[in-house]
């Protein structure tokens, strides 16, 4: 069983107050345990946690580049195997590193079947460099490279379905979770690191700075994403959907209206057409994963 009192991320890191990814980092290590080697991608978490020499990490941690964590982890795992060592190897990477630039390395590592757990902290844009769109950015979100404007309603494409892509690689365990449910993260990470083979966990980590909300509401935002059906917590085990968090769904406006990145859908006037499209995404999620609680 995971030791929930374990603190392997030291105070003094430079994340924004109320940072979702910083919270995720603490929870991940409670689940993974202290015999864990972390392989980080360039990204917001990497930068807020490791300005030389002030690392926040108390477990072995390595960073190489933006897009190669899965490959670096492959090498670490191969080395440990040859040396007969027992540490867990986990990648912790943002959605830019995971959904976009790192796909080649991730696909290779999963296809080869390395015994690693790849964790994406998904804050739905490139937060490290100032909130540019990524393949994980939701439909209609305004970012600095998909700004809302006279001819734009923000990001024009829906979020890429990374968990299904990795499930299709034959990963034995693929799960999504959210910082809104801390114990669920701990449980899922613990499960993943104890499964042989490449496992994938995608954690929804609201970013107060990037999304535009107050840092005290990070968890509330995470909950709203789930309660509206725009984020679904599930587990896919050996390709089969095993467990889904069910909710009594709220309308998507409840989630959208509290974030600056969707402000253009409400001001100067309510854009019901666009909001209906986003509601349709939530409805499709609900249908696909069966999240609606039947009362």
């Amino acid at each position, binding site marked *: 069983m995971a030791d*929930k009192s374990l*603190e392997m*991320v*030291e*105070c*003094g*890191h*430079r*994340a*924004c*107050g*109320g*940072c*979702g990814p*910083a*919270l995720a980092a*603490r929870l991940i290590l409670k689940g993974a345990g202290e015999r864990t080697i972390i392989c980080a991608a360039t990204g917001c978490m990497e930068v807020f*946690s*490791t300005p*030389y*020499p*002030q*690392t*926040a*990490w*108390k*477990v072995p941690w390595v960073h190489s580049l933006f897009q190669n964590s899965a490959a670096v982890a492959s090498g670490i795992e191969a080395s440990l195997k040859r040396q007969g060592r027992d540490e867990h190897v986990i990648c912790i990477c943002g959605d830019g590193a995971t959904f976009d630039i790192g796909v080649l390395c991730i696909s290779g590592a999963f296809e080869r079947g390395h015994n690693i757990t790849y964790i994406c902290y998904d804050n739905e844009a490139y937060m490290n460099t100032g909130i540019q769109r990524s393949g994980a950015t939701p439909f209609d979100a305004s970012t600095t490279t998909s700004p809302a404007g006279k001819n734009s309603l923000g990001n024009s494409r829906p979020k890429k379905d990374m968990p299904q892509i990795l499930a299709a690689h034959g990963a034995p365990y693929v799960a999504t979770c959210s*910082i809104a449910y*801390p*114990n669920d993260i701990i449980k899922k990470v613990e499960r993943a690191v104890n499964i042989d083979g490449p496992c994938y966990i995608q954690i929804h980590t609201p970013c107060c700075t990037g999304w535009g909300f*107050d*840092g*005290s*509401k*990070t*968890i*509330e935002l995470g909950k709203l994403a789930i309660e509206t059906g725009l984020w679904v917590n599930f587990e896919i085990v050996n390709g089969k959907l095993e467990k889904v968090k069910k909710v009594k769904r709220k309308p998507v406006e409840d989630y959208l209206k509290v974030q600056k990145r969707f402000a253009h859908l409400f001001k100067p006037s309510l854009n019901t057409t666009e909001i209906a499209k986003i509601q349709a995404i939530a409805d499709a999620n609900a249908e696909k994963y069966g999240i609606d609680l039947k009362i």
Partner: protein
Amino acid sequence: MALRIGCASAPGQARDNKTGSWRVFKPIFDHEKCTSCGMCQLICPEGCVLTDDGKFIPDYDFCKGCGLCAYECPAKAITMETEEK
């Protein structure tokens, strides 16, 4: 201090960086109202809620004053006050 080659560093040195100075609002913990559920400690992004003799206490050296603990406290035992410096 000589550089450690390869940009390597001993663990946990972030402690040298006292992020408490970032704070604008300060959480005040009311131990009377506290039900010891541990939520504040579990969800603090800094990991700076300590336990002392069964009581939860923020480490003001590091607390950035984000207010997440106060917002999420089921017992409403934490209030945010303007920092006096």
